[in-house]
């Protein structure tokens, strides 16, 4: 995907499907281990009983993990234009269960004078949206 060339409004792009299983969750944990946290390690992400009490059928993946997959799509497309002056706002609308395969999708929604607005959504293997929101990146000229 070209970073230098500006995408047109309406352009769509998508990430590679991502299997969010136990191995992926453990790798994600390793990426977060510094500085160490001291919260309970028994929670809705790690324990079936805790997940059930919260109303979920099984332990669910961390919301930040799904957000990270979505935002990597924007990083891959726009690089520093996202990291320097960009941003996002998302809602986690459905839980992601371990073993789900999620895929991030994006569409250039609007071109403003100094930035592009991007619609973002992540779907699971059933086609259900688990995350929706928007991101913004600086325009190429800046």
């Amino acid at each position, binding site marked *: 995907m070209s970073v230098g060339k500006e995408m047109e409004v309406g352009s769509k792009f998508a990430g590679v499907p*991502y299997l969010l299983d136990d191995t992926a969750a453990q790798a994600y944990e390793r990426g977060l281990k510094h*500085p160490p946290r001291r919260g309970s390690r028994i929670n809705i992400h790690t324990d079936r009983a*805790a997940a059930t009490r*919260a*109303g979920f059928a099984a332990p669910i993946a961390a919301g*930040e993990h799904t957000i990270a997959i979505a935002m*990597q799509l924007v990083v891959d497309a726009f690089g520093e234009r996202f990291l*320097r002056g960009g941003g996002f706002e998302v809602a986690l609308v459905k839980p992601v269960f371990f073993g789900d395969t999620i895929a991030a999708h994006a569409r250039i929604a609007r071109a403003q004078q100094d930035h592009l607005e991007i619609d973002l959504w992540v779907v699971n293997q059933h086609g259900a949206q688990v995350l929706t929101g928007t991101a913004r990146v600086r325009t190429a000229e800046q």
Partner: protein
Amino acid sequence: MAEQAAGKDQRLEMRAENLHQGMRLGPIFYIVESQQIRAFAAALRSASPLYQGDSPFAPPTMRLNDYALLIAQHFKGGRGGVHARHRCEFIEPVRAGQAVRVDGTVTFTQRKRGKFYFTLEYETRDATDRRLLMRQAITSVLLNPEGGLT
């Protein structure tokens, strides 16, 4: 902290009654490690050149969960929460080797249809020159002491 050195944990219990709008959390300080950047990029299965080299950028979402550090510094116990919304504004990339400072404020609390929502806004600055690097806000539904949502 002195109270911890003395063996006393003076953190508040993590429950709705103890979360108030305007409550300040932090600061926390840490140094961003290149090893962590590599581990996080690997978890995303990303080969982005931005995360490689002698002075790599941190993936922009690597520090989303600093809210958990802020909460753990001020609160103990609790069942955790369910992440509902997240907002983030990137001013400058965070780099390997950079010392950063994170401060937060509880900006919104609401009990709605039996669920307790709260928003924690937090910002990351270079710890040396206080340059703003990123601003974030997380809205969560707090699990009750029994572990349920309502």
